[in-house]
């Protein structure tokens, strides 16, 4: 089995130590950084994502694989920066102001990173200004907001209204998620997509980044 394929396999097995070793070995063997990323790490995570979708594996398996992915990514990141390899898309994500529920948002961020996107995670209790300032500063394509309470959902609208005020609405895509949300609510506040879970967030971001590129 070639080294890239083995890297993908070890990632799928959720073996971070092996994934890091194989990534380093591939770097040492002068394998192209983008090949290691696309055909090793991202390819491995896509298999994991697909199996998860088909209920062949479950959340803990996905999260173990994600840890392995990050172990490899940590080694590739400096090379990607040095070589100027662009990420497939940048997402600023956070739980809205007033809300501390971050497990769901964390899982979504993990899935997005696993799919190869650059994710800037602002944590929880994030103000509308912080969402937009960061997205502008980092030139992010997507702003992702999470809320788990009906009382914090309106902050999502505030973010979108502020984006309109700052005339960046339409230039960036807004995705929203969290238990009390719905497609209707997302539409009502002007968000571009409501995402039921991490996989649907990945699908939406893929859709939007291919549109924007």
């Amino acid at each position: 089995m070639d080294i890239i394929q083995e890297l993908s396999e070890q990632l799928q097995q959720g073996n971070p130590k092996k994934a890091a070793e194989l990534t380093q070995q591939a770097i040492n063997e002068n394998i192209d950084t983008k090949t290691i990323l696309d055909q090793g790490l991202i390819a491995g995570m896509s298999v994991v994502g697909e199996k998860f979708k088909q209920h062949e594996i479950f959340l803990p398996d996905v999260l173990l694989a994600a840890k392995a992915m990050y172990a490899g990514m940590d080694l590739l990141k400096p090379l990607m920066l040095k070589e100027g390899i662009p990420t497939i898309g940048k997402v600023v994500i956070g739980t809205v102001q007033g809300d501390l529920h971050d497990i769901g948002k964390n899982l979504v961020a993990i899935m997005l990173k696993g799919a190869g996107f650059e994710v800037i995670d602002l944590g929880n209790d994030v103000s509308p200004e912080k969402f937009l300032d960061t997205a502008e500063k980092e030139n992010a394509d997507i702003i992702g907001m999470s809320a788990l309470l009906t009382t914090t959902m309106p902050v999502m609208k505030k973010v979108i209204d502020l984006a309109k005020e700052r005339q960046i609405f339409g230039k960036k895509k807004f995705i929203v998620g969290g238990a009390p949300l719905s497609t209707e609510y997302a539409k009502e506040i002007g968000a571009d997509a409501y995402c039921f879970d991490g996989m649907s967030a990945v699908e939406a971001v893929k859709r939007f980044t291919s549109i924007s590129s």
Partner: protein
Amino acid sequence: MRKIINIPVNSVIPKVNTILERQGIPNHINANDRTIEIAEEAISIFSKLAFPIGVIQELSKEEFDNVFRGEGNNEIDSPVRNIFKASDDLALFAVTIEEEVCVEISRLFFMNDFALGSMLDAVASEATEMAAQATENYYRSHLQKIGRFNNAGGILRFSPGYCGWHVSGQRKLFQYLHAEDIGINLRESFLMEPLKSISGVIISGKKEIFQFEDTFSFCGSCATHICRERSKLLLD
């Protein structure tokens, strides 16, 4: 009656199967050994870090009527409203498993230990529910001891944010209960800190008062319809 209850951590340790279910692994699926190991590790961390504690305070129907009205955001008709009006005894409660577990969950995520972090989150959520159940059990024993609860009786708890009782109802509930005494604080957005906390009312009365149809305006958007199970359990 007002009582702060120190709940033994061992009494709120969830079963591995229950945690796995929370992680999206259905009961009929045999989880792999690694997943079970992670679940067991999460339980072990939880038992070292958690300090379940609850507070309970009895109140009259008139007092609860005021608490329940909250900020005036409730649905016009709701089961809680109908049930408390027909009840015999009422007590507000709040429980938490304290902050340390929440801090550890964040730390595990920060260290990229996602599987263990997520599993510990599931253990902590389930344990908080069990702590709420322990508080309800405490109140039942108390009522039994003073001769206000017998076999014809039923007891159930309800929380703001469920069944037409708006989550903003937490403000009045907190004003009355003073859950700060056990380290729970309420934010502007009506979220409690620590995150793993539950508040609500425990209602005691005849079993029949807890029976209702899930045909309220908000029942359509309810994901669980857990009320069906709860009221059925009372009759069994």
